[in-house]
């Protein structure tokens, strides 16, 4: 029973993190039409920055927000330096083919991931680094009972839910949010309405970068970051997106939590090595049974 509850709450807090990663991916997917495989590379980089700041004696929260800013800046840089030039070239020979138009941005983001990992490696590799949790990661005690969750679990779930609500409100209630939604749904009409779609898209990358950084910070254990430590998280986040439906924010969240539970239970009751196999089977299963994801719209799968 204890194992079950432990797995449940671990699944919840990890699921919250996967939900954040998936959220970041959906934002860029809707805004720019591509899966940003470099996203967790941005997160990894900003986690390193935050870790360095803490080692130099800065306050935890200062480091936290510095990481957000780094993630945001990296997102903006990727959009301005890589994605914009790519979009401008979309009429030319190779990029004129629709399958290539889908494939090329994926390849570009993989290249960016490689760059981020290499640079991070050059600056920080070899030094054992971690990013501590801001609150206790020891099991909570209420009275004399040990709860199956930690304060950190609650903190994680709380932060993620806050971000999700904030993002949702931002998109649905504000003018900038409306501009973002409009640009994502039909960028030509948006431009004809006077919306600066290029800048709006960059904003999407900025928000996504910041969100990913939060996920990276929450998931990095206190003892070790490495240039490739967040790769697995990206895969899981991507799968969460596919499960939920690539263009649905709600779907991303649901998918994230679902995967969080599945993985936690596999780790608790089965071999942790089976995780990749389980993810693969879930991925294939969803694509077979409901290719647009649980909440996605039919059109979006780009047949």
């Amino acid at each position, binding site marked *: 029973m204890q194992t079950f509850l432990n797995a449940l709450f671990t699944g919840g807090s990890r699921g919250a993190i996967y939900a954040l990663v998936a959220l970041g991916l959906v934002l860029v*997917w809707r805004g720019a039409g*591509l*899966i940003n*495989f470099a996203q967790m590379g941005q997160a990894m980089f900003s986690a390193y920055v935050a870790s360095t700041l803490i080692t130099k004696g800065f306050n935890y929260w200062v480091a936290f927000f510095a990481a957000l800013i780094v993630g945001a800046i990296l997102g903006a840089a990727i959009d301005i330096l*890589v994605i914009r*030039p*790519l979009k401008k*070239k979309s009429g*030319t*020979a*190779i*990029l*004129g*083919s*629709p*399958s*290539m138009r*889908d*494939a*090329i941005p*994926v*390849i*570009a983001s*993989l*290249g*960016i*991931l*490689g*760059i*981020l*990992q*290499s*640079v991070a*490696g*050059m600056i920080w*590799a*070899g030094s054992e680094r971690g990013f501590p949790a801001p609150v206790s990661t020891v099991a909570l005690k209420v009275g004399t009972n040990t709860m199956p969750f930690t304060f950190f679990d609650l903190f994680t779930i709380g932060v993620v839910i806050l971000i999700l609500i904030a993002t949702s409100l931002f998109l649905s209630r504000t003018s900038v949010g409306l501009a973002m939604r409009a640009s994502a749904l039909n960028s030509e009409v948006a431009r004809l309405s006077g919306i600066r779609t290029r800048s709006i898209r960059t904003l999407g990358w900025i928000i996504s970068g910041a969100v990913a950084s939060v996920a990276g910070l929450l998931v990095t254990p206190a003892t070790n970051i490495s240039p490739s430590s967040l790769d697995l998280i990206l*895969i899981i986040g*991507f*799968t969460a997106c*596919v499960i939920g439906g*690539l263009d649905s924010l709600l779907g991303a969240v649901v998918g994230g939590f679902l995967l969080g539970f599945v993985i936690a239970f596999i780790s608790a009751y089965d*071999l942790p*090595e*089976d*995780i*990749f*196999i389980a*993810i*693969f089977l879930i*991925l*294939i299963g969803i*694509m*077979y049974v409901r*290719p647009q994801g649980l909440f996605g719209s039919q059109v979006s*799968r*780009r*047949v």
Partner: protein
Amino acid sequence: MFKKLSTTQRNLALALFFLVAIFLLGHFVGPYNQNQIAVALTLFVGVLSINILTGLSGQLSLGQSALMAIGGYSCGLIMTKLHISMWLAIPLSAISAGLAGLLLGAVAAKLSGPYLAGTTLVLALALPTVANKFESIFGGESGISIDTGTPPSWLISILGDISFEEWQILVTLPFAVLALYVSANLFSSRSGRSWRAVRDHESAASLMGINVARTKVLVFIISSAFAGIAGALYGLRGLVGTSVYPIALSLSLLTGSILGGMRSLLGAGIGSVVIVFLPDWIGKLASPFHFPDQVTNYLPGLATGLLLVLTVVINPGGIASSVYALLAHLRSKKSPVDRK
């Protein structure tokens, strides 16, 4: 005279030229370079598999390392458990990889773009863990060691002493040449054209009577067979294990394909050369700077990532496309009227 030959004959001539040229090159360089040539030949087959899959039919797969692993493990198992000669085992590995490609292709045909990329990525990560699970068969982390044997005595009597590395070249070369010949024919054939149609304009292609799904699966099978051969050859350097086929291998092949040129044989050739020789070139470029070890370790990775992004943004057709463009430009200057 060259123009009078049919396309197939021209491709055969090309393949034979390649065979002789690489053989001579391999014979006269030292062991370190010989090893590089052998690896380059192997990766050439691997990059060809990507050029066929992505360049010709437009399907982006990150799972080549998994297919190579299947090829490699098949070869290893066939050789060690069934005691079949390497020369037979390699083609058999192509078949087993091709079968895997059939399964994967059936799923992939329904997917596009990022979905396909993501799924194949997860596959590439999941497959090695399967090998770890069934340790008794697959040898787990330590894998299966394969012995390429020694060169036959009749060959030694012709060529003199053959180093291990040169023997590597002599083993991989026939298969690379065969792959070259087959690809050349594929690229210039009617099938090649229908695959390009699927790549560029699926709806139009299906209206023309091309069975899009079946085409995609067929290309997957062929591409996977190539990857399987590459994987077998890769493993023949001595070991087939989970660490031999990491996801980074898929990314290397993809990088080579993009840098060299995704849509041509020349591109595959250039790409495989770049992947193999880049670390050395970077090392030579960086040595006057005396960077600390930490930096030099990651320098090739940084260079690769940068080249990939720059190529994709500035020249997505790769080096080969620039070469062809240059040739076309020169040709048009020579005879401005005589253009097709």
